[in-house]
């Protein structure tokens, strides 16, 4: 099991270009569909938690999934799997091809990869919206978050803190009514 956790995250880490957000659909596919390690809701909660904690999203999500499966050891296996491809490929590139970024072939590949990565992030966004149950009365929340963070450049930390505080305040008020 530990080995399988390690290999799964290693595979995702080794084959995704475009950073943590591009890795999400791959992790979801491996964890929810292929290995059936957790259900969609638990995975989406993990994603929300991973975004609420500082640090790289992919690392945070690996910790969540790994810990769920095999506590501390699972966590170590998942994180190691996510980190190793980066470490190895960067060390090789940095020591052998210092002009990697200038190579025409890599530039060409990367130019095509960018829009594909956007598609890779866009599709699960639609699927997640369906699963969460986006309706007319709550679709403003993601929309406002998208505008504040994506366009106005506000730190997500403020929104996360605000969401947690408002939710606690609301549920406290509701419980007093009853």
């Amino acid at each position, binding site marked *: 099991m530990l080995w399988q956790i390690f290999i799964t995250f290693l595979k995702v880490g*080794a*084959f*995704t*270009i*475009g*950073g943590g*957000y591009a890795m999400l659909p*791959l992790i979801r*596919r491996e964890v929810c569909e292929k290995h059936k390690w957790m259900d969609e809701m638990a995975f*989406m*909660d*993990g994603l*929300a*938690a*991973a*975004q609420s*904690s*500082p640090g*790289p*999203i992919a*690392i*945070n999500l690996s910790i969540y999934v790994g810990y769920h499966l095999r506590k501390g050891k699972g966590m170590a296996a998942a994180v190691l799997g*996510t*980190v190793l491809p*980066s*470490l190895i*490929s*960067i*060390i090789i590139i*940095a020591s052998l091809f210092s002009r*990697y970024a200038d190579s025409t072939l890599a*530039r060409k*590949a*990367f*130019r*095509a*990869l960018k*829009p594909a*990565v956007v*598609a*890779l*992030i*866009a599709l*699960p*966004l639609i699927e*997640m919206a369906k699963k969460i149950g*986006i309706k007319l009365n709550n679709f403003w*929340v*993601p929309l*406002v*978050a998208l505008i504040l*963070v*994506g366009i106005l450049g506000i*730190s*997500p930390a403020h929104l*996360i803190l605000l*969401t*947690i505080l408002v939710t*606690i305040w609301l*549920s406290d008020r509701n419980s007093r009514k009853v």
Partner: protein
Amino acid sequence: MFTMFLTFIKIGLFSFGGGYAILAMIQQEVVARHGWLTAAEFADIVAISQMTPGPIAINAATFVGFQRYGVLGSILCTFGVILPSLILMAIITVSYIKLSSQAWFKDIFKNLRLLSLGLIGAAMIMIGKDAFPDFFSVVIFLLAFLILWRWKVNPIYLLLGTAAVGMVLG
């Protein structure tokens, strides 16, 4: 080297929002504050981090560490940047398992899920900003979307295929 390790712990601890937010923080610390790298060197590192597999923040941390202190430096910087995650995320996960039956805790996650959706959208905008310089890239986006949606192709194959197409036609 110890200062560098501490700096990357700080970066890991105070950066919310994933890769691009972390890159901005690395630049502030490594280029502006400590002068370990020049702006041009850092720009190269950013480009390579995006073009290499794995989380961008990890790639950048590895690279910066390697440039200063070789393999040991790269391991140290990577470990530094994920150390706060290891502690905080473990606490969050344990409390999630313990508290997930509480109503108020469920409410928090119900709302965080909505927020999470918006944050993914925001990340998409940030990555998409300079992804569409020409008609070719729009075609690739539409084809990639269609292939993922209609035939549920494994994204790994899609990325490998796209890279090949880019090399041949780009």
